[in-house]
């Protein structure tokens, strides 16, 4: 009954509890409570996904103000899938942080909780203004987490990140104002219905609003001219924070999916598919630039951050295809790329700590203290992130390539995705050989991998084989989710009970 709101309430309440007496001074108690809450969130997210899958879309109407007037949460297959992904990634990052990285400054655990609350809320909301509010919740937590632990590098990149996102928030509000002025509603389903009736000057205004929103989501998703903040920000953040940030670009992609395939989708009359002329070239260029960045990275953290840009480009290409098959492939790829990028950020930190002064840079240096353990983990991670056969990256890429059906699409998408895969393979092989084999002396550091760190990395890495072994079940859910999104009567009319009554 109240299941859809739990993924927002649990982190909110836990975050508040963590600031209160029995917990606020003792780090051990904080860790225990945070971990319990994280596992509870995973269970709730699983429950929500199975409910949404079997009983159809769950709508949670806050305060019983019926849509389109009240605030609603919509738990359909896509949003619950993303919530589950967030909770798993969060648990992995939290386990890693519990090994000692959470002691870099105060309030790490509460901030981490609030960040998850914002991300879950952004996925679950059925209302564009609440999307803005949850964006701000996740952003302000991320600002604080980014500078957590201190250091020149972090402050420097945080200034860029915060200013850019504040301008982004202003543009978001401008876009919302325009859309509310023309459509008279902020409920996503209601907007999708009303946008069809617009014409003339109103349509042009609404188009401006829609494209402003695309700009804002593009900033979050690292679409080409707006991606410059990403590599530096992600590579300077501490490892668990960077791992959790891996889902933030996906929040942008998800918002594009919601707003630009539903409100400004194929059936929106004059304003049908307004985002496509922009998404097409920009997503391809994002992929290309990200790949060049991967090749040019001097260190493993920066390389991983550039891989995040590559995966964002790949996902946006799938959005630009605007078809059921492509969206299903994109959902699978989101699951894969988020978990693996998170694992890679954690691994990069483990490697950097064991190499002494050289940190994660690709230079000849001392060996790592545990070459076998880290080497095998790095190898698996690299295989998966590049998209080599046995692991999930391969499956995701094959699904994406299959989604490009027409000759024109194939002509552009196939070579770019394949070449980008090859280039990433080259860059990661170079990274691996330099870090593990080109060594000057045996390791002098007595850093060892903590059990919690191993569990965190293991949990995220395990996602890759699981996505392959249970590939059938996962693709069944993603394809049904995509079908639901493109079926107007299921994704819109079902959410507007009053409209239906009036129609009859």
């Amino acid at each position, binding site marked *: 009954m109240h299941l859809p709101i739990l993924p927002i309430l649990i982190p909110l309440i836990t975050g508040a509890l963590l600031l209160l007496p029995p917990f606020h001074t003792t780090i051990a108690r904080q860790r225990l409570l945070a971990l319990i809450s994280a596992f509870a969130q995973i269970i709730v997210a699983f429950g929500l996904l199975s409910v949404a899958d079997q009983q159809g879309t769950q709508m949670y109407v806050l305060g019983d103000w019926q849509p389109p007037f009240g605030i609603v949460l919509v738990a359909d297959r896509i949003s619950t899938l993303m919530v589950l992904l967030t909770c798993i990634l969060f648990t992995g990052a939290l386990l890693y942080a519990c090994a000692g990285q959470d002691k870099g400054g105060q309030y790490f655990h509460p901030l981490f909780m609030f960040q998850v609350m914002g991300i879950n809320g952004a996925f679950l909301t059925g209302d564009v*203004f609440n999307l803005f*509010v949850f964006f*701000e919740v996740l952003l*302000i937590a991320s*600002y*604080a987490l980014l*500078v957590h632990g*201190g*250091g*020149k590098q972090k*402050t*420097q990149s*945080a*200034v*860029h990140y*915060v*200013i850019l996102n*504040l*301008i982004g*928030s*202003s543009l978001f*509000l*401008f876009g*919302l*104002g*325009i859309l*509310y*002025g023309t459509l008279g509603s*902020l409920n996503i389903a209601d907007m999708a219905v009303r946008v069809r009736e617009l014409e003339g000057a109103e349509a042009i205004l609404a188009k401006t609003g829609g494209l402003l929103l695309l700009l804002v989501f593009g900033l979050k998703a690292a679409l080409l001219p707006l991606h410059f903040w990403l590599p530096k920000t992600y590579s300077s953040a501490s490892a668990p924070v960077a791992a959790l940030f891996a889902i933030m670009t996906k929040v942008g992609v998800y918002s594009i999916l919601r707003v630009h395939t539903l409100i400004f989708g194929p059936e929106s009359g004059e304003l049908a598919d307004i985002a496509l002329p922009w998404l097409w070239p920009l997503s391809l260029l994002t992929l290309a630039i990200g790949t060049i960045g991967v090749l040019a990275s001097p260190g493993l953290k920066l390389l991983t951050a550039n891989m995040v840009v590559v995966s964002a480009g790949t996902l946006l290409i799938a959005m630009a295809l605007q078809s059921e098959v492509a969206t299903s492939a994109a959902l699978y790829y989101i699951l894969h790329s988020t978990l693996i990028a998170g694992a890679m950020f954690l691994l990069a930190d483990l490697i950097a700590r064991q190499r002494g002064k050289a940190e994660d840079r690709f230079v000849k240096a001392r060996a790592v203290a545990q070459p076998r353990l880290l080497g095998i983990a790095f190898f698996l991670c690299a295989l998966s992130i590049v998209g080599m056969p046995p692991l999930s990256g391969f499956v995701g890429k094959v699904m994406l390539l299959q989604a490009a059906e027409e000759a024109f699409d194939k002509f552009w998408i196939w070579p770019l995705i394949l070449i980008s895969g090859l280039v990433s393979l080259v860059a990661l092989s170079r990274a691996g050989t330099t870090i593990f084999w080109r060594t000057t002396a045996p390791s002098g550091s007595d850093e060892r991998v903590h059990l919690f760190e191993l569990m965190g990395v293991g949990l995220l890495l395990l996602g890759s084989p699981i996505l392959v072994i249970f590939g059938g079940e996962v693709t069944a859910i993603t394809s049904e989710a995509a079908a639901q999104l493109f079926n107007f009567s299921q994704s819109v009319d079902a959410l507007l009970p009053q409209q239906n009554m009036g129609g009859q």
Partner: protein
Amino acid sequence: MEGIYAFCVGLLTACGIFLALRGRTFPVVIGLTLLSYAVNLFLFASGRLKVNAAAVLGQSEQYSDPLPQALVLTAIVIGFAMTAFVVILAMRSRADLGNDHVDGRLPNVQAQARLRNRKLRK
């Protein structure tokens, strides 16, 4: 009224964007503040401008749309918190990095001038 209102919002936005593009953190923060003022006014106008119309149903013949007012309230609160954060961050970066440039280092104007002079001499 609409004309003046639109002009004010436009002016605020223009000033905000101009200041946000400056190189030092202080003008950038002021620019962000102006931009958020412009946004608040803009959101307020999205429910259409009306005089003598309370946002209450049934109290008078005319009533104005209450939703944008609620939105503006939310936006003000969020904007205020964000501005507070960015001010603190700017001070922190001034302390950490030793200057108030947004890039964390001053653009090397003198070195560039020297380079230009050397080229001119050749």
